[in-house]
């Protein structure tokens, strides 16, 4: 459907390939594990549940051909080592996984822990953003992760230009752009998240930024567009008695970035993998056929286009 004149880089993250021209590779899907009250205590029942959800996502990945990334939510110090151990036990050797760490101080802690246990090279930092404090910047320099998601969220300007400005120059808030800093830290693999914003806060610019950023940098680009659906005021009321309709919108929102050339989607709770993977695989089939028919972009046998005939 779309093709960029800028060369599109393909990253090799362990056994996951990410990027390329639209329709070339399957969309990489990030499901967030350990998010929710249930997993706060990490009791045996919760751990068992988390393992089952990680395996279920992996099974969906095997079925559709869409690579799966476990996005490990890390909200407090006590759970870091335990959660990472579980994920390392469950994932194939060398598989990358992302760490979703909202607080800057915690990100610093996680980067250090990852370095101590020798897994920095498999970490996708979710995300490197303007919330980073000085201590985090120092930790990034000292213990760079194998990959980082750079977040284009710019509270001063939600337009595409504003989001690009955050990555490029720091938007007058940071001394340097996130892109320059990530390169200085020696982070080898950089991927870009356009930074989902709510409806009436330039939500569509989240999507418009995808092809613009891909065209500008040739790097893998994506977003967590389901967050826009989650923050939709009307839906908050409606979903109370219409859960399946909400889940349809939540999963369905992932079609939008993929149609605009996104390479990955952060789709929310990993428990939704059963709904999201076939849905995105279907969109990938459209994109792949469109890319092949018109631009001569071919796909290998592992692509949903070939696997799900």
């Amino acid at each position, binding site marked *: 459907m779309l093709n960029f004149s800028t060369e599109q880089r393909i990253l090799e993250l362990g056994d996951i390939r990410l990027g390329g021209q639209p329709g070339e590779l399957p969309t990489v899907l990030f499901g967030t594990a350990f998010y929710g009250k249930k997993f706060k205590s990490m009791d045996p029942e919760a751990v068992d549940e988390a393992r089952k959800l990680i395996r279920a996502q992996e099974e969906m990945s095997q079925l559709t051909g869409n690579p799966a990334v476990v996005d490990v939510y890390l909200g407090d110090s006590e759970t870091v080592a335990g959660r990472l151990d579980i994920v390392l036990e469950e994932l194939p050797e060398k598989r990358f996984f992302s760490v979703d760490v909202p607080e800057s101080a915690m990100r610093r802690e996680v980067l250090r822990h990852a370095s101590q246990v020798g897994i920095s090279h498999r970490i996708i930092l979710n995300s490197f953003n303007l919330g980073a404090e000085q201590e985090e910047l120092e930790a990034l320099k000292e213990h760079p992760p194998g990959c980082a998601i750079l977040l284009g969220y710019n509270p001063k300007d*939600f*337009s595409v230009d504003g989001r690009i400005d955050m990555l490029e120059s720091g938007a007058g808030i940071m001394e340097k752009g996130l892109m320059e800093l990530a390169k200085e830290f020696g982070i080898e693999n950089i991927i870009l998240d356009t930074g989902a914003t709510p409806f009436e806060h330039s939500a569509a610019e989240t999507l418009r930024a995808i*092809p613009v950023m891909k065209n500008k940098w040739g790097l893998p680009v994506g977003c967590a567009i389901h967050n826009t659906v989650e923050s939709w005021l009307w839906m908050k009321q409606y979903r109370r008695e219409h859960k399946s309709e909400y889940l349809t919108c939540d999963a369905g929102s992932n079609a939008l970035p993929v149609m605009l050339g996104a390479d990955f989607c952060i789709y929310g709770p990993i428990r939704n993998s059963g709904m999201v993977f076939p849905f995105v695989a279907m969109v990938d089939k459209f994109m792949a056929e469109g890319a092949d028919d018109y631009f001569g972009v071919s796909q290998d046998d592992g692509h949903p286009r070939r696997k799900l005939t």
Partner: protein
Amino acid sequence: MMYPWRGEFTIGSPNSQIAIDTLSSKMNFPPELVAIWGQHKTENLGVEKIIANVVSNPNIRYLILCGQEVRGHRSGQSLRALHSDGIDGNGRIIGARGAVPYIENVSAEAIARFREQVELVDMIGTDDLGIVLEKVKELSAARKEPFGEPIIMEFVERDKSSRMKSLTGKISIHKDLLVDPYMEVEIMNTEAEQC
């Protein structure tokens, strides 16, 4: 217009001097006792909405922060930090531990007014309705005068990017990205003919 910024809130008595931020917890209150209450998810846009709506009603003199903290965003801690220390020159809430604690859409005047207008009652972590109601009754008895005139902050749409019209045969996505549906194919055909 009172409470000009849309959000996930319920309106009670406009004469009450109490507003309640329940963070991630769902709670309901007797409308005759509370001016406005609701959940609050984010450390940036959510905080801005609370500021804009509180300063629109000078009768509100107490803001109770209760319910369970929002994981990751630390919305309650961020609001408490804003009330205590304000923002720095870049718009960052001083001392906030949330993910992206920046205030960009409300004026310095409104922030200063908010900090002066309301006394913040920190009950973060309390989602027992009875305990919060006790505090509401206690505060209702401690009457304060309304805080001057309302400040009404209309939600202002941001400047749009420079618009462009679609050119014939091309799709414009953005000023830096024109998609020409024929160009690539023409190039590919030319290359094929040369082979």
